[in-house]
C-alpha cells in the first residue's frame, strides 16, 4: 500500500488536470472523466486515511462540518424570516386574498417553528424549496445550473493564483535583498491593494477593446475565460507570493537547512527537497482563506463580466427578496468553504509529518 501511496498520486492529479484542460478548451466536462477523477481521488484519499488510521479524525471533522452547516442554515433561516416586509410586498399591493393564497402555497402562513422544521426536514433530503421569483423552479435546479460555472471560474482563479504566486515568491526569496526582490514585493503589495473593479475594466479596455485578444463578457469558451480568471486570481496570487517569500526565507534560515548544507548536499537538492517542501506548508494552509477570498471576489467578477454563476443569483435574489434562493446560495457557499478547509487540512497532514491529529 505504501508504494501505491507513493506512486498512485499521479493518477488523480493527472485526471484533475485533464478535467481542467478539457473544460478550459470550452467543452462540456464528460461525466466519465469527472467520475474517474472523483473516484480515484476518493480511493487515494481513503487509502491514505486507512494507512494512517485517520478514520476517526475524518469522521469527526465531517460531523463538525455537518453541524456547522446545520447552524448556518438555522441562523440564516431565522435571519431571513425576521426581516420585516415579506417577499410578496410589491409596490402595487396585492389583494389580500391573493397574497394569502401565495403565502399558503409557500407555507408562509404556518407558525415560524413549523416552517423551520419543514425547511430543515426538506434540507436533509436535499430539497431547498421553490424559488419565489422564478415561479415553479426548484432552488436545487437553479443552483445546479449556475454551480458548474462558478466552480470552473473558482478553480481556474485558484490555479492562476498558485501558478503565479508560488514561483514569484520563490524568485523573490532566492534574490533576497536585491532590486528584483523589492520590485516583486512592491508588485505583490500593489496586487493585494488593487480592487478588482478597477483591474477588470482596465483589462477589458486594454485586452479586449484595444487589442481584441479576449472577449469582454460572458462565459462561453476559452477566450471568454481568460480575463475573469486572471482578474480574480491576481489578489490571491499577490498574497501567495508574499507568503511564499516569507516562508522560504524562514526555512532557509532554519537549522535543518544548515545541517543539510553542511552534509554536503548540493544546492539544488537542498532547495527542492528541503526548502521548497517545507515552505509549502504555510502557503498551502492558506488555501482555505484563499478560497474564501476567491468566493468573495467572484461576486464582483461575475457582475462585471456578466457570468451566469452563483454570485449573480445571490445578489439578484437578495434584491428580489427571493429568500429560498438566498438561503440556498448561502448554504452552498458555506459548504464550498467548509469542504475547502477540510481538504486543506488533509493535504497539509499529507505533506507535513509534524501535524498531529487530535
Amino acid at each position, binding site marked *: 500500500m505504501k508504494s501505491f501511496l507513493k506512486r498512485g498520486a499521479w493518477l488523480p492529479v493527472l485526471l484533475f488536470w485533464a478535467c481542467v484542460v478539457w473544460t478550459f478548451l470550452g467543452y462540456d466536462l464528460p461525466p466519465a472523466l469527472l467520475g474517474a477523477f472523483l473516484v480515484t481521488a476518493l480511493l487515494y484519499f481513503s487509502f491514505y486515511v486507512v494507512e494512517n488510521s485517520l478514520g476517526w479524525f475524518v469522521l469527526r471533522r465531517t460531523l463538525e462540518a455537518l453541524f*456547522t*452547516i446545520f*447552524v*448556518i442554515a438555522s441562523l*440564516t433561516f431565522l*435571519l*431571513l424570516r*425576521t*426581516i*420585516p*416586509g415579506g417577499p410578496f410586498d410589491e409596490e402595487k399591493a396585492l389583494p389580500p386574498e391573493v397574497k394569502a393564497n401565495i403565502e399558503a402555497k409557500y407555507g408562509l402562513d404556518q407558525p415560524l417553528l413549523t416552517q423551520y422544521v419543514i425547511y430543515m426536514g426538506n434540507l436533509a433530503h436535499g430539497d431547498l424549496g421553490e424559488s419565489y421569483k422564478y415561479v415553479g423552479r426548484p432552488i436545487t435546479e437553479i443552483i445546479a445550473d449556475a454551480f458548474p460555472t462558478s466552480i470552473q471560474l473558482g478553480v481556474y482563479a485558484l490555479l492562476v493564483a498558485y501558478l503565479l504566486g508560488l514561483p514569484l515568491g520563490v524568485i523573490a526569496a532566492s534574490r533576497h535583498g536585491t532590486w528584483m526582490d523589492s520590485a516583486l514585493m512592491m508588485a505583490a*503589495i*500593489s496586487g*493585494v*491593494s*488593487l*480592487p478588482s*473593479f*478597477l483591474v*477588470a*475594466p*482596465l483589462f*477589458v*479596455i486594454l485586452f479586449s*477593446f484595444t487589442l481584441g485578444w479576449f472577449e469582454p463578457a460572458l462565459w462561453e469558451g476559452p477566450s471568454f475565460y481568460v480575463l475573469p480568471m486572471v482578474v480574480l486570481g491576481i489578489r490571491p496570487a499577490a498574497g501567495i507570493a508574499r507568503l511564499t517569500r*516569507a516562508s522560504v*526565507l*524562514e526555512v532557509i*534560515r532554519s537549522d535543518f537547512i544548515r545541517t543539510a548544507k553542511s552534509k554536503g548536499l548540493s544546492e539544488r537538492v537542498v532547495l527542492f527537497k528541503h526548502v521548497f517542501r517545507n515552505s509549502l506548508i504555510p502557503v498551502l494552509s492558506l488555501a482555505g482563506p484563499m478560497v*474564501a477570498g476567491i*468566493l*468573495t471576489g467572484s*461576486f*464582483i467578477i461575475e*457582475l*462585471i463580466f456578466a457570468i451566469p454563476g452563483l454570485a449573480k443569483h*445571490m*445578489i439578484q435574489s*437578495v*434584491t428580489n427578496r427571493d429568500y429560498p434562493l*438566498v438561503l440556498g*446560495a*448561502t448554504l452552498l*457557499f*458555506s459548504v464550498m*468553504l*467548509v469542504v475547502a*478547509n477540510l481538504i486543506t487540512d488533509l493535504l497539509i497532514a499529507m505533506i507535513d509529518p509534524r501535524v498531529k491529529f487530535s
Partner: protein
Amino acid sequence: MIFDQDSWKRLKKNKVALGSAAVILILILIAVLAPVLSPYPFDAQYLDQILASFSRRHLLGTDNLGRDMLSRLIYGARISMAVAVFTAVVALVIGIFYGSLAGWMGGWVDSLMMRSIDILDSIPALVLLILVKVFFDSIGVIGNPELRSLVGMLLALSFVSWVSMARLVRAQVLQVKQMAYVESSRALGASAARSLAKHVLPNIAGPVMVLLTYMIPSNILFESFLSFLGLGLQPPYASWGVLANDGWRTMRTYPHLMISPGVAIFLAMLSFNLLGDGLRDAIDPKMK
C-alpha cells in the same frame, strides 16, 4: 513581539512605511477638511458640463449629472475612511473583549466561544456581509433610509471584521498568560481583570496594532464591494465604492468616472498595507 523603543527606531528608519504614513495623514486631512478643500459642493449640478472630461474648470471631469468629480472624490474620502476606521475600531473593542475572555477563561468557555467563531468563519465574508447588511437595512429602527444604510454598513462591517481580531487576541493572551510575570501578579492576588489590563494587554499591543492597520484597507475594500454591488450606501453618502459603481457602466466611453475612485481606493489601501508591513517588520524584524 512587543512594540518598544527599538521597534520605534526601526520604524523611523523605514522610508516606505513613513511615506505611506504621510499619505495616510494627507488622506485623513483631506477627509476632515473636505468642505474647505473641495472646489464645488459635492452635489451641485453643472448641467452645461455633463460628463465633461478633465478640464481646468473640473480637474477630474464631471459625472452624468454634471457633478464635479474631484469634489465628489474628496467627500468620498470622508465616507470611505470614516467607515473603514470606525468599523476597525469597533472590531478592535469587540475582538479584545471576546478574545481575552476566551483566552483567559480557557476550558469549555474557550472552546464554545471559538467554535462559534469557526461557524461564523465558515460563511464567506461577503456573503455574511450581504446578509447582515440586508438585515440591518430592513429592520426599521431608523426612519431615514440614507442614514439607515450608513448605520447598516457600519454594523455589518464591524460584525464581519471582529472575528479575526478576537482570534489574534485569544492566541496572544494564551501565550502571555503563561509568562512568569503574569503568573506572579496573579499569585500576589491581582484580580483577573487587573492582570489582563496591566500585564497582558500591553504586551499584545504590537500584533494587535498590525492587524488593525491591515483591517482598515480590508474594510475599505469590503465597503466598496458592497457599494459596488448596489447594496451599499445611499446618496448623498457617496463613498469611493459608490462612485466606482456609478463609473464602470460607462467605462468604455467615460473611463475617467471609474478610474479616479478606483485609484483613490488603491492608493488608500496600498498606504495602509505598506504601513502595516512596516509595523510588522518593526515589531518582528527577522522577517524583513
